[in-house]
């Protein structure tokens, strides 16, 4: 057990936990932010995607001891009122089926557009390839990323 000061969604949290505990479980079980999902635990599915200093990272494979004083943003902190362009585009395109993968998809898309405001089809697909959608909403995901680019 050790104590960590984490910066999440612009708030400070002190977490007492095993230094190896992945950020995912600190978020979900300790802090109580459950928007970030567990899908595989081995950085293969993207359900747990959050932003660390603006980069999309897999929180299931990031120990809290490695977060340091990095700025973490989760789906709950992506926007104040759920109106980030990516969230709006996801609503407009009516992307989800079960919805379980979508917070991870949205976080990957938001990180992509932050760095590349006008991605090509290939760039979208390759940036989103780490996020599995078992329900198969990929066509809508691509459309929504393109729409979000126009809403920026």
């Amino acid at each position, binding site marked *: 057990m050790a104590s960590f000061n984490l910066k999440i969604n612009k708030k400070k949290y002190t977490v007492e936990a095993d230094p190896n505990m992945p950020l995912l479980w600190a978020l979900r079980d300790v802090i109580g932010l459950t928007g970030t*999902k567990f899908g595989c*635990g081995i950085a293969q599915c993207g359900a747990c995607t959050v932003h660390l200093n603006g980069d999309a990272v897999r929180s299931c494979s990031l120990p809290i001891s490695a977060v340091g004083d990095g700025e973490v943003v989760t789906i709950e902190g992506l926007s104040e009122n759920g109106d980030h362009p990516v969230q709006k585009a996801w609503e407009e395109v009516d992307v989800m089926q079960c919805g379980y993968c979508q917070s991870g998809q949205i976080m990957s898309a938001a990180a992509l557009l932050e760095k590349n405001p006008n991605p090509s*089809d290939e760039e979208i697909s390759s940036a989103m390839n780490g996020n*599995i959608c078992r*329900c*198969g909403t*990929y*066509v809508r995901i691509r459309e929504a990323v393109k729409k979000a680019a126009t809403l920026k």
Partner: protein
Amino acid sequence: MEIIKTHYNRRSFLKVSAAAGGGLMIGFNWLMSCAPSDEKGTLAMPDEWFDINAYLKIGNNGVVTIYSPNPEIGQNVKTAMPMIVAEELDVDWGNVLVEQAPLNTIKYKRQLAGGSQSIRQEWKTLRIAGATARRMLMEAAAQKWQVPVSELTTDKGVIKNASGKTLGYGEVASQAVSVEIPEEVQLKDAKDFKIIGKPTKNVDNKKVYTGQPLFGLDIKREGMLIAMIAHAPAFGMRPKSVDDSAARNMPGIKDVFTITTLPDGIEPQWSDVNAFKELVVVVGDNTWNVMQAKKALKIEWEATSELMSTEGYEKALSDLLEKKADKPARMDGNPDEVFKKAAKIVERTYSAPFLAHNTMEPMNFFAHVTADGAELLGPIQTPEQLRTTTAAVLGLPQEKVTVGMTRQGGGFGRRLYGHFGVEAAVIAKYVNAPIKLVYTREDDMTQGTYRPAYKVKYQAAIDKNNNLVGIKIRGAGIHESPVFANRFPAGAVDHYLVENHSLDSNISTGAWRAPRSNFMAIAEQSFLDEVAEAVGKDPIDFRLELLDRAATKPVGERNDYDAARYAGVLKLVREKSGWDEKKDGVHRGVSAYFCHNSYVAQVLDVVMKNSKPVVQKVWCAVDCGIVVNPEGAKNQLEGGIVDGLGHTMYSEMTFKDGKPDQNNFHNYKLIRNSEAPLEIECFFVENGIDPTGLGEPGLPPAGAALANALYAATGKRLSTQPFAKSELAIITM
């Protein structure tokens, strides 16, 4: 206009106390009773709610809450079912909130997600629920105004009388609760629908896209512990001894013990499929700590039955394909005779592996068992069956077990088999605390309940005039043969033979999105393509000729399809895809299949890019009768197509000595974004027939359309899934 007697499910319409806050629903909890869906977040909450019937309550300000009775697994019934109620209630959809109803077998009829049946089977009930409430509100208004109810009309939640006066539903709701339930109600004409048929967004969009807690895995309660299980690593094994000395002393760990979830003497139901009834359980304060302790367990396992390997059952299934069945499942004419005299015989064997469901949200369930009873909450497709088994296992009467449903991170059939809910209850009782059982992906993927491995051999006899005269189909699969004896092309061919074999295994299997159809469509529709080529006909023309034969002069009596509707989707997809114009460099495949009461035909275009096939576009024509929510319907079809292509192309479970070779997404490949079709376009037949479901029917044809397009592109007929294992390169953008 249709007049319907309301009595067949009157219990749903029994009046209940008009207590504010909804005395209607029992077993409510934080997850369900948090602010209901309000997309815009702008609806003002009423001061008081009036329960009109089991499906809806109306606030004094006119806001309406509609309860969605069935489990939501991503098939979007939580939007579509309330739309149907709202239509007949005649309210503004913008004024509607939706809440998931918990299991209540007195109030609701069939709270089960399976077989694409939610919309089809509940269509009338949901309409009656809305229409009954509307009628009661109108009668309350008629009493107020002292006018006959026949002079009143409604629109968007407002009642109007002949002199032009109006009353909102909220203004008469308190009186409506004491109006006599009408004996019969009028349902709208389809032409008057204002909500049904309008593209309508998912009611949970906002919550999901902002990360609100909605799923089973998100449940948190005061004092709740986390439980995880270790099941045997191989099918045919059980725990022999457990050394938990290290695990027990790890941080946060409360207890380690072994349970049996279905003790002897309890008669299993169909939904109790489970290969691992003896489990080692670790309970602790958080998921990570429990995961670590689980790794520290030293468990010795022992084999209690045969440890099967893929090679072994593959050979056994192949051997079965060479064996005559004791009794045919169907026989028309004299197949042996026409095969003997055939000028040409086309033959091909198709095979497919076991598949895991891999719902994105792994199995999990919340349970709390006290002296008063058991409370269960989580993702489950069969809440009623879960209650029955849990009550039996805990030795409680059914009324003492409540089951609530969360939004579910996928189903695909996996959550029909609710052993994890029973396990949660048994663990909660043992530790005497509320617990959430969580499976890791590895626990989930290696637990079984798989789509069975299947094989089928097709043979076609062609006479000297190049006519198809006979078909023989012999199927074999783990626990079941995949073949449906009376489906197309049965009924279209004079001499027809179906034989079924099955092979026992301790590898457990269960329904997986479009059971059996998910394999048979690929085999049948690839084979018909090959036969069409052998007789020198266009693949669509050839299918239409067979369907014409089935419609005009059917062979046999028990043909499980409507040939005219089948032909309808093929004609529609031919027109929409421009099938008859050939395009340079574009290789096309067609496929059509009927299952779960809906008809689907697809044309799929492949182009070669750097000598790799890319799925450029899929056209999908569908006959599911009235389309309740076109947006949701299209989403289901798109998902079905991507799911079908992905699994046909990439996925499989294989075994060595009973142990699965795959246990997570690094060794079990699921289709990814860059591999999905560039474009999918859907078209619906408009015929006004009562609606049927779409959760499954979009999937089966996709793999065959792909196989047929790949044949056009490469000259190779693919028949062994997953296709990516053949020398053919994988599809990618």
